[in-house]
């Protein structure tokens, strides 16, 4: 737990661009909430590796969102089922069903469809909220924290030693 917290702080306090961190979190949202071994996650992996996003933030987000996905599976199933059962979309789904790439992507699975749609909807809000949060954290909370006696005490604690030992800190 301490390690995870230290890792979050390490990312937040690093020199990395807030956009790179928040984009990594947004990508991890898709990869984490949807079934990992899905074709669309190969696209996510490609983007994560090619775009200069923060890999530590992505991996951390992936772990957290994968855990949350298990809790939200019934919700994703219900969302996917109502989308795939919608009469107005039947023509679209039928066309996709007859295309190998979509069959491999398992778009017709209720959880794949539900979780992908939910994560895509949340993608931009999560990106902008995370970015704003990081900027605000660095400008206000981090600057204030550095001046407090608590921070002074933490710097002297074992937690700080773990935190300081993490790679990418300096």
């Amino acid at each position, binding site marked *: 737990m301490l390690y995870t917290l230290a890792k979050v702080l390490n990312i937040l306090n690093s020199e990395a661009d807030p956009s790179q961190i928040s984009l990594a979190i947004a990508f991890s949202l898709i990869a984490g909430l949807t*079934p990992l071994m899905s074709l669309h996650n*190969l696209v996510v*992996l*490609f983007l*994560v*590796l*090619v*775009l*200069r996003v923060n890999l530590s933030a992505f991996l951390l987000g992936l772990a957290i969102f994968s855990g949350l*996905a*298990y809790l939200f*599976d*019934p919700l*994703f*199933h219900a969302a*996917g*089922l109502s989308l*795939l*059962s919608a009469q107005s979309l*039947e023509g679209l*789904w*039928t066309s996709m*069903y*007859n295309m*190998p790439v979509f*069959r*491999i992507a*398992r778009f*017709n*699975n*209720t*959880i*794949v469809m*539900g979780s992908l749609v939910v994560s895509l909807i949340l993608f931009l809000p999560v990106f902008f909220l995370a970015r704003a949060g990081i900027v605000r954290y660095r400008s206000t909370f981090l600057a204030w924290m550095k001046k407090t006696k608590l921070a002074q005490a933490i710097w002297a604690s074992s937690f700080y030693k773990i935190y300081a030992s993490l790679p990418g800190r300096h």
Partner: protein
Amino acid sequence: MRKWIRWKGLLAFVVVTALLAFFWLALADGLVRRGIERTTAFLVGAEVNVDDADLTLSPLGFVVSRIQVTNPDNPETNALEIRRMAFTLDTAQLFMRKTIIEDMSVEDVALGTPRERPGRVYRETAEEVSPAPGEGTSWFQVPDISSEDVRKAIEEANLETVKSAQALSDEIENRNEFWDQRIEQLPDEDRLQEYQARIDALGQTRKGDLGALLRKGTEAKDLYSDINADLNLLRDSYRRFSEDYRTITAQVGGLSELPAQDARRIAQEYGPSAEGIGNISSMLFGEQVGVWVERSLRWHERITPLLERRALTAEEQREVSPPRSEGIDMRFREHAPVPDFLVRKAAVSVLTRGRTLTGTLANVTPDQDILGLPTTCLFSGENFEGMQGIRLDGTFNHVDPSDPRDMVRLALDGYDLRPRDLGGEVLPVELQQGILDTGLTAVVLGGSVDADLDAAVRSARFLVRQADGQAAGLSAAVEKVFSQISGFSLNVGVSGEPEDYAVSVSSNLDDSFRDVIDTLAKDLAAQFRMQVTTALEQRVSGPINSVEQQAGSLERIDKELSERISFTEGLLKSNVFSLL
């Protein structure tokens, strides 16, 4: 823009993707092996083991070695064991998530092989269903005279006899009392003596006295009238008494016949009879046939998912709660419909009785409605060890899922029957040898089963064992009948729903047995009736003797009345007439 692009990431992506592909290929064998194990185990309900599965890339396919399917009814053996199975996949269809196997070879299938360790059974098998109780299970029962039922029946019958004796005794007593009282009121000896005195007095009348003679005449006339009236009274009473006496005597006589009547009734109720015996064929083969039918139906139930996919309705899809992370794969109309799984043709070789039985399976798919063709099978072979020939063909037509029609035809020639016990505990008979020729047609149509088996057994030899509690005469008769049988025919019919079906078994053995059993039943029934009669007579002899003695007391009254009548008649004829 360059700030956002990580060119090294492109290389990393290629490497990661290549590694994923490599690992998938490396793990494919294991995935397929486990896939076969799980899917088959789900269908059969018991553990399935696959030794190895090898992926071949050109053409894409698999070679699977040694598949063992545990027999859920006997986990220490395999229902079947396949030495090698090879198949190629339609690669283009794989991208549409379709498993289409154009050609498959299933080599060296062996049935009932022993397992190194007992396999796990995931679905408990239903209890063996015995043949329906009824005509086939009743058999010749020779009751013991000392058995509880018979003893109780004798006691009850005894009560009836004693009650009758008691009632008759009371009647005799009443009649005795009545006639004792009545006889007191009838002219008795004193009165007759009085008549005699009057006669004597009249005899002494002087002959020359005319007046006296006239009085004598008048008195003699009065005396005659008095004696005649008493005589009529006595005669009338005697006539009525005689009627009573005859009635009582008849009832006493009837009482002695009651034990015999009771014995006949008991013998009819509890004694041996050939009427209740069902057909011997049911008794001998019913249980075995029931087990075969039940096993066949169970295997049909197991393979049904291979023949027909049960699609969920929209309502069921909404209500169903899929396992976490799995969801439901929704289906949509395909432009060129193809089954999800299809084995177009499979060549199968089965090792049995020292030779290979070859056959083909065609169009194995749970999506027959999409393919438009039924699943078929055809196996045949000749000159096996202990079997001259076999032919099995079947059609499993689920093209219209609402009207499935499955049919199997089996013909066996010269099948060498192994020793087997028949008849259960009731009629323990061992068929020691026999050669079977048979034809079976079984149809499962619209949820109901209809099967007909005609069989002829030749060179048959039986061994009859003595059943517990069976009469010695019966065993000897049964043994004699079986010793004369060297061949027989057998017809088995099955009809009804798989959960509630009726089995009928008939054979020419029934005719062979009927006459023998009829004669034996009559002999044994007569013996039993005699035993019961003897037992009853012993129990009721006391009360009957008592009644007979009571009845004897009425003779006294008879004698008394007879004497009085006789005396009175004497008075009238010899004395009074002489006076006149």
